[in-house]
């Protein structure tokens, strides 16, 4: 499924310089980055607007030619058609034909992968159900909300059961429940050995699902590593315990302050707004 060294994407000194009409350098979008993404990994590419995330993604897709450096995807150059047969891509915007229905679009993309007959029908129907578009399957995409169009975008990305999945802002425009479903779907795919590269501004989503992340700034990778390594603060611990009586708590805090020289911070552990939302909506009587 992957390559001999287990690297699905390997970039060395990857650079992209956009030039003007006279071929003079206009902007250096990506500046000599090194990137290694392994099979079965969920890798997050983070960064502010204009940091080079989309340019990097487009080079991996073979839509932009690198100005210098080496880039291999699934062991081959990214523009190789054989590589694209093993790749799925969901762009940031839902670039779809607005006069076509969800089923027509998916059938069309399935044809581009050479799927036919029962396999095509099975994949299209399965994905329509999986992304929750059964009721809207025959409506033109132009009538879809942004979230529904994103679901079609995700379905087309998974049509060929790809080994490498590239996602640009996959949860953008989705409601929290759909967002959770997408994240669960991606985690499930990674468990099946699929490699996933995600570009996103939704840091909480990235924290939830990514194994490793890289932060891009002005075309350079500022930092990269596992999410756990980046988030952990080895000098600080969080201890959750049932709320003790005030006197006991005060005694505990005094003791810790005496031992460490610093007064601990005490707060209540809370749930995330996402968990409150999902619980409220799923328990509501009107929810099917």
């Amino acid at each position, binding site marked *: 499924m992957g390559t001999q060294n287990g690297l699905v994407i390997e970039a060395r000194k990857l650079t992209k310089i956009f030039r003007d009409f006279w071929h003079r350098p206009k902007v250096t979008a990506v500046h000599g980055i090194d990137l290694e993404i392994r099979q079965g990994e969920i890798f997050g590419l983070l960064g502010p607007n204009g940091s080079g995330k989309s340019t990097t993604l487009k080079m991996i897709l073979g*839509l*932009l030619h690198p100005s210098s450096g080496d880039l291999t995807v699934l062991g081959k150059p990214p523009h190789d058609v054989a590589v694209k047969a093993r790749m799925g*891509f969901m*762009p940031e915007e839902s670039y779809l*034909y607005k*006069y076509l229905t969800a089923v027509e679009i998916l059938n069309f993309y399935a*044809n581009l992968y050479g799927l036919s007959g029962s396999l095509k029908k099975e994949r299209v129907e399965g994905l329509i159900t999986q992304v929750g578009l059964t009721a809207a399957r025959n409506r033109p995409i132009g009538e879809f909300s942004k979230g529904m169009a994103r679901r079609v975008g995700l379905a087309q990305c998974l049509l060929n059961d790809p080994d490498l999945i*590239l996602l640009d802002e996959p949860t953008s425009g989705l409601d929290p429940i759909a967002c959770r479903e997408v994240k669960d779907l991606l985690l499930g795919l990674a468990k099946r050995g699929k490699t996933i590269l995600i570009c996103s501004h939704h840091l909480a989503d990235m924290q939830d699902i990514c194994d490793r992340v890289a932060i891009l700034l002005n075309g350079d990778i500022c930092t990269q590593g596992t999410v756990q390594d980046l988030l952990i603060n080895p000098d600080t611990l969080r201890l959750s315990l049932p709320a003790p009586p005030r006197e006991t708590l005060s005694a505990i805090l005094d003791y810790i302050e005496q031992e460490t020289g610093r007064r601990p911070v005490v707060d209540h552990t809370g749930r995330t707004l996402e968990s409150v939302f999902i619980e409220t909506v799923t328990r509501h009587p009107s929810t099917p």
Partner: protein
Amino acid sequence: MTIGFKQFIALAGLALTDLFRQPATFLLVLTNIACTILVPLCISHQLGQQTHLAVDSALAFEFVFGLILAGYAACSTLHNECRSGTILIIFSKPVGRLMFFLAKFTAVALLLAFFVYCSSMATLLAERLAPRNFEFDMLGIKLILASPFVVFIPAGLLNFRTHRSFVPTSLFFYALTLTAMVLILSTLDREGQRVAFGSMVDWRILPACLLEGIALLLLAAIAISLASRLAAPATVTLLLFLLFAGLVSDHLAGLLASVPTAGFVLKMILPDLQSFWPADKLSDSGALSGAMIGHAAVYATAYGMGVLCLGYTAFREKQF
């Protein structure tokens, strides 16, 4: 069926479906039909040239509306896909750029073939409807007036009952209705009496429309090549310029007679559209020969292939 051929069919088929569902296509095709059919009813002077005027006007409408449709369709299917980003998804699939480019051209060419068919039927009707001896063909007029009801009501009902898209259904129903009207009027004279099939129809119009159709395919090749880089307004403007320059290319070359090389280069660059203007050849009971159409087809194929090669070169280097 190989995967490559299947991909080509899928790309061309989807582009054609998308083009047929666009309201602009609907409006351009129907406006051409309406202008073609209504002009003979509006001719105010009676100099014995009514049928000649009706056919000339119809052929001119076909050229101009066909050109606008070629420019619009090429930009809608290629430039707009590049601009909107749909192409990002297509090229993330195992699809080559040459196949994509040729599939888009094929879709535009098929749309134009449909347009030329409708226009041919409308031109046959226009010739029949032109007043003769100060008298209109009332039977033909009644059929024309009934046609919107025959087309739009069933298309609307189908849309209501089955959610079938209204725009392409109406277009196909209009093509069928025009064909039926031509067949009916081919068997009846102006008083509604049965006559030998086709005796009341000027069939010389069909090869004339075919010749214009070949010219429109040549213009479609130019349009799709321009659309790889330019938006619709610029593409249609350049096409209009090429249409007028192509129609007077001999005259322009003559102006440069003192500089033979410049005249030769100009003749090579500009499409020789004079060879595709059939109205003059139809006057005075003339007809278009098979050799004439064959010669025009060979020229259009050679010129079109050259233009497509240039267009593909520009498209191949494009970065998204």
